[in-house]
């Protein structure tokens, strides 16, 4: 890329994964990897870190940020909060440079065209860069906006994502670890919003016990936000990796659904309609398709992963499941289940040690 003007927009389906990782952060970079690996990924482009840098640089935000951070006393949470709030309002008050806004608008329109839609609803997702585990460490700290529709709304959401680099939690986290925000510029992904029939998360290792012989799936009707944010007790499925057999399928009473509010143009959490509450939101075929995708991702990465998946309303049996996010799992993987039966060792471990 040397010699050329920095790119502000990167299309995920045609990007080189390494370049995507460097320019658009872990979240979008992994989408590019998965796209290359043949997984079913929604159409997406990203505003690169160069776009972010240009915005904060040219609009004078850098100076504002540095000035506020210089006054922070890291030991006083009030002081951290005050600086973070001031920086975020500076982001909101600073308009985007017209050239960048035009680029985003053009990319958004192209995305709409490619999706055969007019103002295609999108998910606008923060995609942090910098340290390797930035994505995991900052999980849930940066903003994601689901169901944004229209170029202007998208541009607003992009600015909000940028600003979320300076939430109180994020600022506090960096201060405590001595990380400069300059080292983690914020890319933003604009991703076609898959029309979700059901969504959720899946782990290629049990997230609690660390057992690596199974895939664990948690599912809810609609979009995955209610599951990700822990607002609902989702259906719980466990699938054995060796033979893809369903080991457990617990259907929960699901009280909340993330649904698309057409009037507001966003995905919101609403009470689950009674007829869906007790119904299993996945069938065996869908579970198998999710397991296929999770195993493929784990195999390509070579380490356990958790993924966010969506069963599209338009998906037909046999088609792949849409993957909207994946990342290395943070659970410590347990040693393999004992394949042999050793009663003394088992009794010693579980009973005689007072474990019952």
């Amino acid at each position, binding site marked *: 890329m040397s010699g050329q003007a920095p790119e502000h927009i990167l299309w995920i389906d045609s990007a080189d994964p390494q370049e995507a990782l460097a320019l658009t952060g872990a979240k979008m970079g992994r989408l590019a990897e998965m796209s290359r690996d043949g997984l079913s990924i929604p159409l997406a482009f990203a505003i690169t870190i160069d776009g972010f840098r240009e915005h904060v640089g040219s609009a004078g935000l850098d100076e504002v940020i540095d000035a506020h951070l210089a006054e922070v006393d890291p030991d006083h949470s009030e002081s951290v909060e005050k600086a973070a709030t001031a920086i975020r309002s500076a982001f909101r008050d600073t308009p985007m440079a017209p050239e960048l806004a035009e680029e985003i608008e053009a990319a958004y329109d192209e995305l709409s065209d490619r999706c055969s839609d007019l103002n295609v609803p999108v998910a606008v997702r923060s995609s942090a860069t910098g340290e390797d585990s930035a994505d995991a460490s900052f999980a849930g700290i940066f903003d994601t906006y689901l169901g944004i529709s229209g170029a202007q709304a998208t541009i607003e959401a992009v600015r909000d994502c940028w600003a979320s680099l300076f939430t109180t939690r994020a600022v506090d986290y960096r201060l405590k670890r001595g990380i400069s925000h300059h080292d983690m510029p914020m890319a933003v992904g604009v991703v076609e919003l898959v029309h979700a029939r059901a969504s959720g998360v899946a782990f290629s290792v049990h997230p609690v016990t660390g057992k690596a012989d199974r895939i664990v799936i948690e599912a809810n009707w609609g979009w995955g936000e209610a599951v990700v944010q822990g607002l609902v007790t989702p259906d719980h499925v466990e699938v*054995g990796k060796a033979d893809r057999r369903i080991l457990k399928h617990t259907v929960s009473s699901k009280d909340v659904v993330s649904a698309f509010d057409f009037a507001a143009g966003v995905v919101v959490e609403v009470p689950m309609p009674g007829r869906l509450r007790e119904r299993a939101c996945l069938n065996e075929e869908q579970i198998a398709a999710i397991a296929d995708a999770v195993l493929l991702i784990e195999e390509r990465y070579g380490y356990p992963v958790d993924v966010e998946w969506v069963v599209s309303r338009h998906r037909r049996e046999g088609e792949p499941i849409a993957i909207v996010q994946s990342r290395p799992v943070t659970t410590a993987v347990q040693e393999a289940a004992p394949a042999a*039966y050793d009663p*003394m060792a088992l*009794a010693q471990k579980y009973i005689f040690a007072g474990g019952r």
Partner: protein
Amino acid sequence: MSTIISLDEFITDEWYPGFKPAFEHAPYYVEPFRTFNKADEERFWFLDFHWPRGLTPLGLIWNEDGYNWGTQYAAENLPLPPGRGLTNRIGGIHLYGSPIDVQSPYEIGERAQRMGAYLPNFLQNFDSIWAERRDEVERGWQHFVALDTASMSLPELSMMLKEARAFHKRAFEIHFEIMYPLLVNYLGFYGMCAEMGLDVSQIGKFLQGYDTKIMETDRELWKLTRAAKQAGLADVFARTEPQDLVATLDGMGGSAAAWMTQFRDFLQVYGYRTEGSCDVALPSWIEDPTPALGTIKSFIAKEEEHDFEKALAGAIEERETAIDAARSQLTAEEQTAFDAGVASCQAANFPWWQDDHNYYIDLKVSLPLRWAARAIAERTGADQADDGLFLFWPELTAVADGEKSLDSYKSLIEARHQYFDHWHSRRASMPKVLGTVPEAVTDPVLIEIFGLNQHFLNAIQAAGTDGDVKTLTGVPASKGKARGKARVFNNADNLHTLETGEILVCESTSPNWTPAFAKIAACVCDGGGMLSHAAIVGREYGVPTVTAVGLATVVIEDGDEVEVDGDTGTVTVYKSS
């Protein structure tokens, strides 16, 4: 804070009138059997359900040689990693047990290494090892059965008495040598199932549906029942009290005589068993066939015959269904380990052995001691043969060896009979536990063998808060629901008076209680767990059973209407008054 239940009332220097125990007179392995002292209050003691009648002076040989020596010998030699066996004390005439823990983690680890080296061979060859031990007990048994005490001299009887004690002691070394490794195997499997996220309350089912000697005896009793009906004896049984049946039937001749021949043949095979575990005070069925005849009498009164084939088939089907359901939740890797565990535990089957071994050991091996003691008493001029059972070992051997006359003990024996009767009648109100009651019991032996699980402890600790308890809870040990009239039994003495459809309420059951399960609608026990005798037999017979209820025998009274839910472990009491 742990609860402390005072044992002041039971602190004494004497066991019975006129006998101060010299603790050194019998060798001990880790800890001797002795009377309670104040320091014992720091330990946890539980009233052992195996001896609901209490023990006579000679019966205390069991406490020394079986309870203490047998458990400690096996636990030290195998060894059992977390414990050195059991010790026990006497409250009046009632046995309170307590585990001897190994404290040092290093020692537990070393003991686990040794057990781990021993266990694979034991499990692989369990059938032949158990057969060998059974043969050993059987050889000893044949020796004593062949003796005719009536024609033996006093020195010969003295020799027999000492041989009988050695035989009894050795039988309990074998008992615990076999029991502990089986228990370790079971607990290892239990730990694995729990780790795999399986419902551990199902584990008992994985191991059920295997025939035992005790069940075989029950089938024979049903055959005799059928034969009695065919011989037209149903009316005789109906109108005759169990204790009068022998005389009545013998006096009838004809088909009754033929039936009695059949019955006596049965006794020769199955009749050398007592109505309770390890107690010289208990006669065998040969000596007193009232329990067997009483059982047959109540079987005859039952409209429907217990279908053993059907019950066994049901138990097997339930087993296979439970195993399949568990396997379906496991990954392929886990299934490999689970299958190996199931196979190992079915082949070296702890719950099965817990029932089966009673036929060979617990219900039998006290009999030679009893025969010798009674013969010596009779030979030395006792008023009644049972007087021999009211002497302590040093006293009885002195009499047998001609050093003392039985007569010199006459007044003591009389006092001891009264002492026994006094404490015997107090059984129902004996504290279930003494000393320092822990918040939780972790010792697997206490949990699995004695049923001292959390349910039991909770019930004990909640005791005395209200007299108005209507709903009790315990461990759901055998599924199904039933409602009926409660019959509370403190021991098995009058068990044959149970009527069909009644609900058995007791401290706990032993193999001699098994025939009752063909009659009762449900069973409720103070103690026990998923693997106690009542739980196993309840499942085999399809009788709803709830164990570890804690104070069922205190709260429920004869005649109360009781509803037992074996699926939830709930017992609802509708007081009759």
